């Protein structure tokens, strides 16, 4: 009898979290990729503000509803704008941001090659 009781308690405790292990992983991954809009320099995952707590709950609910990671990002982008995503999308406003490192790299390479050939 005691054994059954303990078994029941363990079973109940294990069932408290309705997300599966991999779903918790995706939940955390999504939360880490989102900017906490009312905090500065923190992701939703790191923050304990009311906003972040609610947002984490929304993500959890959406995962349970069966939405994919991409769909959740799109949903939040629709509600809060692109700023909420840490990964900036390639568009007219951000092409400079994305291309500048490549340009600097190419320029540096050009300088090195020029020097190398001049020495020869």
């Amino acid at each position, binding site marked *: 009898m005691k054994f059954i009781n303990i078994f029941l308690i363990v079973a109940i405790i294990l069932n408290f979290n309705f997300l599966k292990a991999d779903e918790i992983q995706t939940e955390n991954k999504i939360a880490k990729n989102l900017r906490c809009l009312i905090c500065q320099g923190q992701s939703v995952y790191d923050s304990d503000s009311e*906003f972040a707590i*609610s947002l984490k709950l929304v993500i959890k609910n959406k995962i349970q509803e069966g939405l994919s990671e991409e769909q959740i990002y799109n949903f939040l982008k629709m509600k809060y704008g692109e700023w909420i995503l840490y990964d900036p999308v390639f568009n007219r406003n951000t092409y400079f941001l994305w291309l500048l490192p490549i340009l600097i790299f190419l320029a540096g390479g050009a300088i090195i090659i020029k020097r190398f050939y001049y020495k020869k």
Partner: protein
Amino acid sequence: MKSKFIPLILILIFLITFVIFFKGLKNTNIYTPDANLKIEVPSFKLKSFENDSIVISEKIFKDNDYYFMNIWASWCIPCKEEHEFLMELKKDDKIKLIGFNYKDNFNNALSFLKDLGNPYDIIVSDKDGTSSIEWGAYGVPESFLVYQNKIIKRFIGPINNEDLLEIQKIIR
């Protein structure tokens, strides 16, 4: 020739960096979203504040009426500031005020309304804050002006006298 050129470039680089950072000083680093979005009202199913009955958003928002959706909480200090303007807005019968009680304790919220007056026609309680995320809200206080099932204006933070005048101008 070469020694003249390098300092000039260095000074130029420093100048450019200085100008960029100096201009950046004046920018606000608080993100402000587009306040005039015409988005559909998100649907919600929430418990009523007074009793346990369920309130459905489709039954609240009807066409050809103005609604002022205000997210508030008794623990939020700026909400007290804006409360007098809400009371003022209540006098206008062209607009209905909907309170969105955000993550609040029932008794505290009740005494808040008792002390300062109840400007709301309908109050729903958002216990875990998930519905305000659906609205794209940041926190408390925040308000949305709704007309024909669309959010026509949003106010982040407490509303002031100017906002009140603007609202009255829109609904006239």
